[in-house]
C-alpha cells in the first residue's frame, strides 16, 4: 500500500517536472516609497517577474516601444520574460523610478 502511494507520488512529480521547465521561477519586485525594490534583478528566459505595488500611487513598469505593465494601487501584475538580454524599464508616470532585468538564456 505504502509503496503504491510512493510510486504514485513519484509519478506525479515526474509528470510535473516533464511539463514545467525546472528553472521557471517567479521573481518578485516590490514597488514601495516611489522605487522598484530590488531595482535590479536577474532572470532566465521563461521566468516571471511579478511587481507588487505597495505604494498609495499607481505606477507602471514600462519598456519604451516594447511593453508596459500597469501597476494599480495595492495590486500585483506580472510578465513572463521571453527574450534574453538586458532590459531597462521605468515608471511612465514617474520616470525617475527605474529598474533593470538582466535576462540569461
Amino acid at each position: 500500500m505504502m509503496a503504491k502511494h510512493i510510486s504514485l507520488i513519484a509519478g506525479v512529480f515526474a509528470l510535473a517536472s516533464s511539463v514545467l521547465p525546472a528553472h521557471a521561477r517567479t521573481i518578485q519586485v516590490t514597488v514601495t516609497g516611489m522605487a522598484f525594490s530590488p531595482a535590479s534583478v536577474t532572470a532566465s528566459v521563461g521566468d516571471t517577474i511579478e511587481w507588487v505595488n505597495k505604494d498609495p500611487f499607481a505606477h507602471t513598469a514600462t519598456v519604451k516601444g516594447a511593453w508596459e505593465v500597469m501597476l494599480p494601487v495595492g495590486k500585483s501584475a506580472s510578465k513572463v520574460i521571453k527574450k534574453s538580454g538586458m532590459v531597462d524599464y521605468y515608471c511612465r508616470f514617474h520616470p525617475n523610478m527605474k529598474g533593470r532585468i538582466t535576462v540569461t538564456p
Partner: protein
Amino acid sequence: MIKTLRMILGGTCLLVMAGLAQAADKPNDAQIAHIAYTAGVIDIDAAKQAIKTSKTKLVVDFAKDMLRDHEAVNKQALDLVKKLKVTPEDNPTSQALTKAAEAEREKLAKLQGAAFDKAYIINEVAFHKQVDDALKTVLIPSATNPELKSLLETGLKIFEGHEQHAEMVAAEMK
C-alpha cells in the same frame, strides 16, 4: 534660509517675493504642512482646468495622472496632520503660491487648443521644479517631525517624477 526660499520661489512672480519677505525665518511644521498641501491643491486645480479645456489625449492623460497622484499625497498629508494633531497654519508662502497660481489660471483661461496645451505643460515643468527646489533646500531640512519629513521626502520623489513626466510630454508635443 529665507533668502534661499525667496531665491527659489521668487522666480514665479513678485507676489511670491513679497509674500516671502513676511515669512518667518524658518517655517514650522504646521506651516510646512500647509505649504506642501497648498502646492498639491494648486496642481490639482491646474489638472482640472486642463481636463476641462484640452482636447489632446496626451495632455488630458497627463493631467489625470497629476490629479490622481496629488489627491493621494494630500490625503496622506491630511491623515498625518490628523494623527499628529497638527493644524496646518496659513502663512505668507502659501498665500503667495496661491496668488501666483490664480494669475497662471487666469492666463491659461484665455488660451485654447495647442496654445493652451503648450502653456499648461510648460507651467507644469516650471511649477514642479520650483516645488522640488523648495522641498530640497527649505521644507525637508526645516521639518522637525520625522513622519512629516518622511512624507515630504516621498512628496519630493513624486514631484521630481512629475517634472520628468511633464518634460517627456513637452518633448512629445513638439
